[in-house]
């Protein structure tokens, strides 16, 4: 595509990737900035213009109960970033908070072990639990999950004389997260009965023992948010990038086209055979990682205009397994709505006074 947009359109819609810096980063389409444009907030225009769609890229990533990639077009960076921040830090989950160590004769110190236990993701739907009240030490069935580890390592009498494999010599010498057993409190056995509650992954190595060492630990899990401690964050990571926008200002042929193709990620630029000579064409700018390699070549840097589309966000959300990623995004949006409502209620209660 060698059509170029008018300057104003470009400033409004594109972030320009230059050789020495990035330009037009901030949103400028506020009312009064551009004569002739009506930039007042209009919900109807927003609803028509924006749409979210899924990419079939989800299929390529095989673990799709745990990760998702989707596009959001027509929204501003401030709101997209708010969603991202909420996904990372404000969607609540359950995690081990209090660790009661009755017996720990292993080589792992109590506090190190407690730290590791806190980081293990617990598969319990946080929407079914409440936050614990401040100052409440005991915890009730509605805000606490109790788990227990009771492991003792013994020597295996049936091991052969000259083996050196710890799996053969010792019983229970490794403590995995599958050894965290759920102890139902109150009516939890009825509510969560069949599926039960436990760690998401059973093969997380927590400690190693030798004969004579044992672990006897009781854990309480509470509901919390990532802002308080990163163990409560429900996503492995959540990020977004803007859709890259590559425009060729002139037709590029022959050997230059070959070099141009190598400057971008594979699949972005394809060579078309026009009358015998290969001509470069931008096929799929989405695959580009925007390394700006093309700007390092003197003869190629004036041929290409690199930029990003300002309102097209490619989100990538990877869950730790507690909640599926689509539920996480819905919860994040609901949390932003709840924040707004909280302040609207405050405003209304102030007006009443």
């Amino acid at each position, binding site marked *: 595509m060698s059509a170029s947009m008018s300057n104003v359109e470009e400033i409004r819609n594109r972030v320009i990737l230059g050789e020495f810096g990035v330009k037009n980063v901030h949103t400028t389409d506020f009312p009064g900035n551009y004569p002739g444009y009506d930039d007042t907030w209009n919900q109807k225009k927003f609803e028509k213009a924006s749409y979210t769609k899924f990419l079939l890229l989800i299929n390529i990533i095989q673990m799709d109960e745990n990760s998702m990639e989707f596009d959001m077009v027509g929204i501003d960076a401030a709101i997209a970033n*708010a969603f991202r921040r909420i996904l990372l830090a404000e969607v609540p989950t359950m995690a081990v908070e209090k660790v009661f160590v009755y017996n720990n004769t292993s080589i792992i110190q109590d506090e190190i072990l407690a730290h590791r236990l806190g980081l293990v993701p617990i598969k319990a739907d946080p929407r079914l639990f409440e936050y614990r009240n401040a100052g409440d030490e005991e915890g009730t069935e509605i805000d606490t999950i109790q788990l227990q580890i009771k492991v003792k390592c013994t020597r295996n009498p049936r091991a052969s004389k000259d083996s050196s494999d710890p799996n053969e010599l010792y019983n229970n010498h490794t403590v995995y997260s599958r050894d965290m057993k759920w102890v139902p409190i109150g009516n939890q056995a009825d509510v969560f009965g069949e599926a039960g509650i436990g760690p998401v992954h059973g093969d997380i190595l927590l400690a190693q023992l030798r004969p004579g060492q044992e672990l006897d630990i009781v854990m309480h899990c509470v509901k919390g948010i990532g802002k308080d401690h990163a163990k409560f964050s429900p996503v492995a990571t959540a990020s977004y990038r803007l859709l890259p926008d590559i425009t060729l200002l002139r037709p590029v042929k022959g050997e230059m086209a070959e070099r141009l193709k190598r400057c971008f990620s594979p699949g972005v630029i394809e060579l078309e055979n026009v009358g015998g000579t290969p001509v470069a064409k931008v096929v799929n700018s989405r695959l580009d990682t925007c390394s700006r390699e093309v700007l390092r070549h003197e003869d190629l840097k004036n041929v290409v205009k690199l930029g990003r589309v300002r309102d097209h966000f490619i989100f990538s959300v990877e869950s730790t397994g507690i909640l599926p990623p689509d539920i996480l995004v819905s919860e994040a949006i609901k949390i932003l709505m709840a924040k*707004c409502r909280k302040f609207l209620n405050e405003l209304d209660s*102030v007006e009443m006074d």
Partner: protein
Amino acid sequence: MAGVEETRKPVLEVVQAEGADEGCVTFVLHEEDHTLGNSLRYMVMKNPDVEFCGYSITHPSESKINFRVQTRGNLPAVEPFRKGLNDLTEVCQFVLDTFEARVKEFKDQEAAMD
């Protein structure tokens, strides 16, 4: 002027300089950061009656933001603030509905293909 009674901590305070008209007000939002601050600033700036809107985090150790709104004409500043909150809620509702509809579509497509 504090917003609420003394028994619980206020989450929203309104600060106004002496002598200034109702159009220039600073709101102090407690327990908030860039998440709500930036998105709310964007929605309030989209209002043509607003002459100035900005927010700042007074100190990174304290979780509160100063959110300033100045209006053109004689409009009380609480109005664009309230409208911004309402607009942001509407945006979120629409994004939520669209997202859930697309998720459902995608899952139906997947089920149909198997």
